């Protein structure tokens, strides 16, 4: 038994999670990575994606967008700009946001507009995906 690792997930608005967990899988900017207790010190940027963590046999999911994870052997700190628990996600709203973003993307002419719309769409789709798995 490798032992547990303490997970903190903070956003600028609140401390979302602070509890011991068995395993964390996070969406790094260069690909997903898993962390168990005893991991080497490590700092990674996160992209928009799904973060999951395991307590015993139970997996919990969150959607995160922009942030970074700081990993120490017994501790992992995730600072995310936006993070939501799967059970908090409002599917109807996410769906509406996805639609709106799609339309924006179709209507966008300038490069920045397209990038912004694409980021919006990505966030909305992620929330849908994570929200549906709860």
């Amino acid at each position, binding site marked *: 038994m490798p032992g547990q690792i303490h997970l903190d997930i903070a956003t600028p608005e609140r401390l979302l999670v602070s509890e011991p967990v068995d395993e964390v899988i996070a969406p790094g*900017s260069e690909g997903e990575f898993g962390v168990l207790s005893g991991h080497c010190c*490590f700092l990674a940027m996160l992209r928009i994606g799904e973060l999951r963590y395991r307590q015993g046999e139970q997996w919990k999911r969150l959607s995160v967008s922009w942030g*970074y994870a*700081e990993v120490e052997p017994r501790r992992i*700190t995730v600072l995310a700009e936006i993070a939501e628990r799967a059970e908090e996600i409002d599917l109807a709203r996410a769906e509406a946001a996805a639609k709106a973003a799609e339309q924006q993307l179709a209507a966008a002419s300038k490069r920045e507009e397209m990038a912004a719309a694409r980021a919006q769409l990505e966030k909305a789709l992620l929330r849908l995906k994570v929200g549906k798995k709860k």
Partner: protein
Amino acid sequence: MPSLQHIRRKIASVKSTQKITKAMKMVAAAKLKRAQDRILSARPYAQKMAAVLKRLSRGVNRDLHPLLRRRDARKIELLVITADRGLCGAFNANILRRAQEFIREKRAAGFEVGLSVVGRKSRDFFRRRDIIPRQTWVQIFDRLNYAHGTEIGRDIVGQYAEGKFDELYLLYNEFKSVMQQRIAVEKLLPIEPAIESDDAGKPAGGDYLYEPDETVVLAQLLPKYIEVQVFRALLESAAGELGARMTAMDAATRNAGELIRKMTLVYNKTRQAVITKELMDIVGGAEAMRGG
């Protein structure tokens, strides 16, 4: 001596004022709890970020990133955060006095000083003095969220990158406790990660692994750091304002109570005097009749 009716009216008027101050105190107290929770839950994030930044920037060549590079300061910008509303004691006045001092000092030292303001009170204050801020944000405290931090952060980082100013200071009320606010002046740009002297020789990042790599992480982190610091200052100020208002309104309610007590005393004394005088008149009149 004022007439009885006059005093009665005064007491009624103070009583209704007291009702208002009492209600304001209650409202501030209710909101304060929430604001306090928010600032307390935002602090860990800001502190963690500062810690990571400190570790990252250790030994990094400061000239490589515009937000870290020290320039020859000529133009200084001051970002003043006050409340939108008054009736919160010396909360706004303290900040504005400090702001004027700051501007005077820096001007005397030969710097050009610019100004950005958050909150209606500071906007109006400087407007009355014909000082036009570069940028104003008002009425954000009722629905304060992280997007405001982002907006202000992006604005100042953008202006800084364009060379509109060389240093940026933040002036706000820090929330110490419900009773106490501290005036905080912090240098925000260029970013000065607090480097302890014994860290100076150590290589960047120590034994950390970075993904993607240090420079990319740093480049992403620095602008966010500004946003987070601005957001934290906004939350500090919001909580401090409510604390100050609660204290001020509590004092006002108590003063009103004291005033009412004193006026009631005068009222009763006057009433008694009037009755006594009337009695004297009657007795005097009766005496005169019998005598005659």
